[in-house]
């Protein structure tokens, strides 16, 4: 087994993609899309993070154990957010007797 060495163009390509996405996210912030502004900003951030994880952090060429570690971190983060925000976002939806 030898180490996978990514070609230079992969790194430069990912770098350029990250720069373009940064420019897009700044530009879109000044356009009124309503609630979609947040969705676009987070979507671009997730895309940038995915590029960094896959190519700069070599997860695309790593073992399944490493891939599982990455997915598990996202999963636990998901649990943290979903359970707290499920409470926060649904407060007051149902009337409480006597309140």
């Amino acid at each position, binding site marked *: *087994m030898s*180490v996978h*060495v*990514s070609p*230079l163009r992969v*790194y*430069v390509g*990912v*770098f350029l993609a*990250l*720069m373009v996405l*940064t420019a897009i*996210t*700044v530009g879109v*912030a*000044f*356009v*009124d*899309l309503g609630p979609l*502004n947040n969705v676009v*900003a*987070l979507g*671009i*951030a997730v895309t*940038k*993070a995915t590029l*960094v*994880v896959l*190519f*700069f*952090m*070599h997860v695309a060429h*790593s*073992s399944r*154990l*490493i891939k599982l*570690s*990455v997915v*598990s*971190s*996202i999963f*636990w*983060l998901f649990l*943290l*957010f979903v359970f*707290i*925000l499920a409470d*926060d*976002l649904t407060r007051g939806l149902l009337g409480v007797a006597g309140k």
Partner: protein
Amino acid sequence: MSEAAHAHPGLHHQFDSYEQQRQSASLGMWAFLVNEVMFFGGMFLAYAYYRHRYGHEFAAGSHSLDISLGAFNTAVLIGSSLTMALAVRAAQMGRNKAIVAFLIATMVLGSVFLGVKVIEYSDKFEHHHVPGPSFVWHDEAGSGKYAGADPFKIQIYFSLYFAMTGFHALHMIVGIGIMLLMLRPAWKGKWNLDNHNFVEGFGLYWHFVDIVWIFLFPLLYLIGRS
């Protein structure tokens, strides 16, 4: 395991092969990063919780930040991630002088980022935007748009701003310190084709810090700009 695997001079005795050693080091680093994800995740959750409640005040606080400095720093940090990735690539190919050069480039870019952060922080102190007894809100940036914003709730935004960017900057300071310590062994040829786990592991850390900023930038600087 094959004789060739045992022939690696960088192989520690507890591992069967260099590949196994490499996998173990990588997994250990990722286990640490999963912890880091949860550490920052708590603060991102606090941010989501309060922004949902105090969206107007969060937009007010966000408007007082300099978007061009934030965008500049984002570009600088992405550049430092590129030089870090190239340092790891140099280590994988056994080019020691290139490792040193790319580490120095990464440190310079990281220092530029921190320098801009110092400018931004001192601006916040001058305008009394630091949460606490001396906090003052005049709505200079919003030109009256945020006149009715509750200063107490704006302080929650700035508390999160300083906590999140502060811990992010602390991670960068630690990273630059580790890179300083890496320069000598890199120059002496300690990391070669048979032994570059350390450089790869550190690269993972530096890219993680970059990812945190990739989320911090839109969440802190780009709220309600349209």
